[in-house]
């Protein structure tokens, strides 16, 4: 059921060599390829039959859910709505990702809309990787959307990565934080050639003592373009920080706009943003330890996107 190409894509986006342990759902070309549930994690097709609902029982700990998507059918734009309900005090890892293998001239795309309802005291680590490959000339697009709702004292850590090969991406992340909850988002995007990627983020700190940190790392190669927009709105006594850094390697373009809005006198919000080439002092240091120029550049970029 999984051919060699599928396996390679799965390895890239989900670090899977074989079918994963625990709960999983593998979607290929818009259809369910394989799924497994556990006593605590249920996965079923939603009512509209346009995606899945993953329900994690309260108190579930040390379990993971893999939900990779693979596409290799030319002309297909796969749109999927997935909902995750994470029960109270659960502690789980969710690994999503999409791999596109494009062999022909027709465009292929994936739009994954992921909605998360994180109940009181639950902790979630969400890892999402996007990658496109293949020698076809068709355009590869990926437009992921994540919407996260955190109840009291919930904690979410999100790692969102676009590894390369994606011609066009329009990324949207939205979150609403309840009292005492925390959200850490790290987004890493690398573009090359004529690729374009835009990332729109909106984080609303609604509950007292909620905290959020949004980190964005962009590497812009070739003539590619990346735009990053992040807005943080504090409606309560809360803490928020946006950190966005971009490295322009060749002749790329980058626009970075962090925005902060406080609607409460005890809100503490801050941001830092930088766009620039690879720092000369970093290159010198690595080369003075015997690295070649190319090795030094690689080391710096790998660290930056780590």
């Amino acid at each position, binding site marked *: 059921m999984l051919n060699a190409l599928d396996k390679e894509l799965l390895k890239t986006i989900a670090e899977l060599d074989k079918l994963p342990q625990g709960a999983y759902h593998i979607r290929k070309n818009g259809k369910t390829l394989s799924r497994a549930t556990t006593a605590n994690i249920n996965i079923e097709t939603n009512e509209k039959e346009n995606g899945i609902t993953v329900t994690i029982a309260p108190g579930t700990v040390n379990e993971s859910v893999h939900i990779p998507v693979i596409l290799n059918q030319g002309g297909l734009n796969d749109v999927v709505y997935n909902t995750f309900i994470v029960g109270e005090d659960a502690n789980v890892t969710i690994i999503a990702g999409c791999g596109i293998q494009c062999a022909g001239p027709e465009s292929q795309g994936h739009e994954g809309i992921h909605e998360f309802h994180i109940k009181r005291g639950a902790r979630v680590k969400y890892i999402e990787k996007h990658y496109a490959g293949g020698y076809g000339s068709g355009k590869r697009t990926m437009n992921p959307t994540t919407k996260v709702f955190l109840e009291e004292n919930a904690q979410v850590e999100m790692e969102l990565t676009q590894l390369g090969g994606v011609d066009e991406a329009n990324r949207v992340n939205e979150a609403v934080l309840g009292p005492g909850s925390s959200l850490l988002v790290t987004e890493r995007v690398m573009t090359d050639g004529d690729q374009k990627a835009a990332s729109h983020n909106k984080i609303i700190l609604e509950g007292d003592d909620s905290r959020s940190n949004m980190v964005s790392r962009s590497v812009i190669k070739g003539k590619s373009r990346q735009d990053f927009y992040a807005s943080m709105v504090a409606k309560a006594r809360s803490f928020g920080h946006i950190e966005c850094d971009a490295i322009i390697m060749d002749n790329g373009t980058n626009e970075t706009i962090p925005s902060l809005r406080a609607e409460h006198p005890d809100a503490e919000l801050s941001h830092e943003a930088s766009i620039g080439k690879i720092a000369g002092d970093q290159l010198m240091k690595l080369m003075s330890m015997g690295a070649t120029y190319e090795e030094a550049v690689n080391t710096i970029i790998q*660290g930056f996107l780590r």
Partner: protein
Amino acid sequence: MLELKNLSFSVVERDEDHHEQQLDIIKDMSYTFKKGKFYAITGPNGSGKTTLSKLIMGINKQTSGGVYFEGNDITHLSITERAKAGIAYSFQHPARFKGITFRDLLAIASKTDDEEKLLKIVRRVGICPLSFLDKPVDSTLSGGEIKKIELATTIARNPKLAIYDEPDTGIDLWTITPMVALLKREQVENKTTTIVVSHNRSFLEAADEILIFNHGEIIYEGDLKKALPILADFRICNFKPCPEGEKDAQCFR
């Protein structure tokens, strides 16, 4: 082991009226550093100490003249090639990275990622605690911490020639003595030819040879005893009063 032959380094600066003016930072310098010796280079700010260090490492490119290392002409070699030939350089203001840890740098410097070997280097350099290894080398490090990391990555190269540019910057007073002892130990045990650029008396006392730089020239070479009166003279010069209306920044240095 390291020979400078008529080495010069100049830059062109534009003054207020856009007139181009040539500034000679290193002037026709010739000197031979001997194998296994400990040299301290000192002198007033702007005298060319750091510039010369960077010329040796290949970070600055000479205007004229040559650099010879163990008999080989390295004048036109890159930083990487000089590093591979056995020259190591400790920056006065070390680079700060994002997402790169002390372990990563040490692994590049020592060409191994073997845990035991890395810990051995950390112990040899005397960095405590060992958990320091996984610290990111970023803006969260204190000035003293980053200098220790810089020193460790230089020593980890096992260089034939080690150049330290003001290694004591940001280091607390009670760490300087062990730092001097460490560089001395590397010199004695590994026959590392050592060049330290410093104003700190502890390094001057540790040196076999003192070089005093002024206006891009070596104005003294010899022991500390005879160097002291010259250095005392500089102190007087450096604190001369600047008259009102003085425009030359040199006066305020």
